């Protein structure tokens, strides 16, 4: 019988054991499947498990490795993919009832990349319906029901990559793939006490992924550590002619090895003073302690303020109008009324009415903002603050009123396509995790990875995990 610790080993450690044949990918997959069957439903973490695919992929990996064909750090490693990524022949529900029986006949590009790396698909992770594209008021806005936080099942995981957060935090898979248009990787990573990377816009192909706001949608890894995220990101990243939003070959690709960190620059960190208007007292206490840790860990840490402007408003206009366009058929046909959430059923009608002139105004503001942020990053390598100003919210919390506070860093980061990383930085007295967020210049994904690696080499918050009954 394996110890609980096996389920929480980072990919780096699992890969070492698999490469040296101390750990069988088939056995590891069977163990994760068993655990996922046991806890997955309790947490509403999966849209579906895929045991046939998982065991076939694990057996293929084992055979390859025995023959000496080891493909790299994801070979034989079980993972879950958010249920907005197409997997050939499987239902891809986008978390929403109107798409409950939707099946594609091709794989998303990220699934192809993971297949080539030899990773093992355990299942499709549950998610907020349409990734929150029609907005939502309650955590139950999902075809699979509300995702429960493994640290406290009376609390939510945050969304929209809610199942991905629960799966990694509960040790049901070694990693998961999430997506973010605005907050959907960073927030669940913070609420669930895991590490999550939102890559620079355009580094990871979205071909075969549900479109919400095409000028803002991104795909990224959620895992146990920054190093794990870096290794997964190296597999996911790359130009794809099938996604016009991807960057050129030389700008999209990402390579990673820990030795790269030894010869890199020391980082200048900007600790943000105006990222949040108010903060939960428990989070504020952890934020203070985290700032002190950063000052001990990094050679230069200065206070810095984000530029002021209508960034949240521009982000909401762009996301609202692009989302309404992406789901125009759903709104027009009235099928939007089949969504689970009362706000999701009607908000698309309002977003559909935003004018083209307002969209263009937001796009102009977006370009001005890009320049302001590029100027700011002339003085700082990374900006840092807590990922969310409050810990995981109770399940019946009204998110429309309770989570609608201004989020200028989220707006800026997603409008400008900046890379961000959330890593755990402490726990409240109620044992709920709190995340620390690093944001860097567009294209400097290595900057946030280096910052996260440095922070995690001085702390052990990322090694803690919940005890599941």
């Amino acid at each position, binding site marked *: 019988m394996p110890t609980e610790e096996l389920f929480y080993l980072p990919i780096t450690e699992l890969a070492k054991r698999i490469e040296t044949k101390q750990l069988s990918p088939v056995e590891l997959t069977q163990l994760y499947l068993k655990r996922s069957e046991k806890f997955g439903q309790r947490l509403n973490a999966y849209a579906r498990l895929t045991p046939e695919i998982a065991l076939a992929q694990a057996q293929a990996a084992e055979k390859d490795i025995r023959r000496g064909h080891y493909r790299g750090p994801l070979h034989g490693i079980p993972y879950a993919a958010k249920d907005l990524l197409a997997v050939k022949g499987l239902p891809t529900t986008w978390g929403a009832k109107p798409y409950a029986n939707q*099946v594609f006949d091709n794989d998303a590009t990220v699934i192809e990349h993971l297949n080539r790396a030899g990773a093992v698909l355990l299942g499709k992770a549950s998610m907020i319906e349409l990734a929150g594209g029609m907005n939502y008021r309650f955590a139950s806005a999902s075809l699979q029901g509300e995702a429960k936080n493994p640290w406290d099942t009376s609390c939510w995981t945050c969304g929209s990559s809610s199942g991905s957060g629960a799966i990694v935090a509960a040790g049901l898979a070694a990693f998961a793939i999430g997506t973010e248009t605005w907050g959907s990787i960073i927030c669940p990573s913070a609420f669930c006490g895991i590490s999550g990377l939102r890559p620079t816009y355009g580094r990871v192909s979205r071909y075969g992924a549900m479109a919400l706001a095409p000028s803002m949608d991104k795909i990224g890894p959620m895992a146990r550590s920054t190093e794990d995220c870096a290794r997964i990101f190296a597999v996911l990243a790359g130009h794809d002619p099938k996604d016009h939003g991807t960057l050129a070959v030389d700008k999209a690709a990402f390579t990673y090895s820990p030795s790269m960190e030894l010869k890199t620059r020391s980082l200048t960190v900007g600790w943000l003073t105006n990222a949040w208007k108010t903060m939960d007292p428990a989070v504020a206490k952890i934020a203070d302690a985290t700032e002190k840790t950063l000052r001990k860990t990094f050679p230069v840490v200065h206070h810095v303020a984000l530029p002021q402007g209508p960034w949240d408003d521009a982000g909401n206009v762009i996301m609202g109008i692009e989302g309404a366009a992406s789901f125009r058929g759903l709104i027009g046909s009235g099928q939007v009324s089949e969504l689970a959430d009362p706000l999701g059923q009607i908000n698309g009608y309002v977003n559909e009415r935003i004018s083209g002139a307002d969209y263009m105004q*937001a796009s102009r503001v*977006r370009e001005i903002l*890009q320049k302001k942020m590029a100027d700011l990053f002339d003085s700082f390598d990374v900006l840092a603050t807590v990922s969310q100003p409050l810990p995981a919210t109770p399940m019946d919390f009204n998110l429309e009123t309770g989570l609608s506070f201004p989020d200028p860093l989220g707006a800026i980061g997603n409008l400008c396509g900046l890379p961000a990383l959330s890593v755990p930085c402490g726990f409240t007295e109620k044992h709920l995790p709190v995340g620390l967020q690093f944001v860097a210049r567009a294209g400097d994904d290595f900057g946030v990875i280096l910052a996260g690696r440095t922070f995690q080499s001085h702390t052990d918050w990322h090694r803690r995990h919940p005890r599941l009954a």
Partner: protein
Amino acid sequence: MAEKPGSAISRREFARRAALASAIGSAVVSIGPTGAVGAAIAATARQPSESANQAPIAPSVAAAQAQLPANMPRLSPESQAEADARFQAILAQYGARFSEEQKTDLHRLCILAQPPLDRLRAYPVQNGDGTALYLKPLFEREKKPKPPSTSQPGAAKPSAAVPAAASGTAKKP
């Protein structure tokens, strides 16, 4: 400036109602009423005003307005008119789909959508400022092989495209 006491209607209210009536009229003309609510709006818009300074206000707006929570943002008359017109346009096109509760909620959302738009519009931009919208010409696409000639009489037509959302190929976002 303070309003004159004894006026039948305030200047602010007059401006709001006039803008709303104009917006309703144009929405009805351009979109066309659909369903019972839309028809009711069209009828209201066609009714002559009772007096020169009392523009008609759609009953559905008035009814939904009465249900709104007290802590709604205070909008300028123009912004209020725009928010109400947005609500009316939704009702004109889709009104039959909504319950009374949903209509009230929609009206609330239309009003809440207004302050962000007002703030965004107030941000100074110049005519020459760029937009973060770029067309990336399709250089990388390879030529598709030419399909075999289908000019023979009686050649079968291609089958109808299946919507991607139902089945088939997952589209690029």
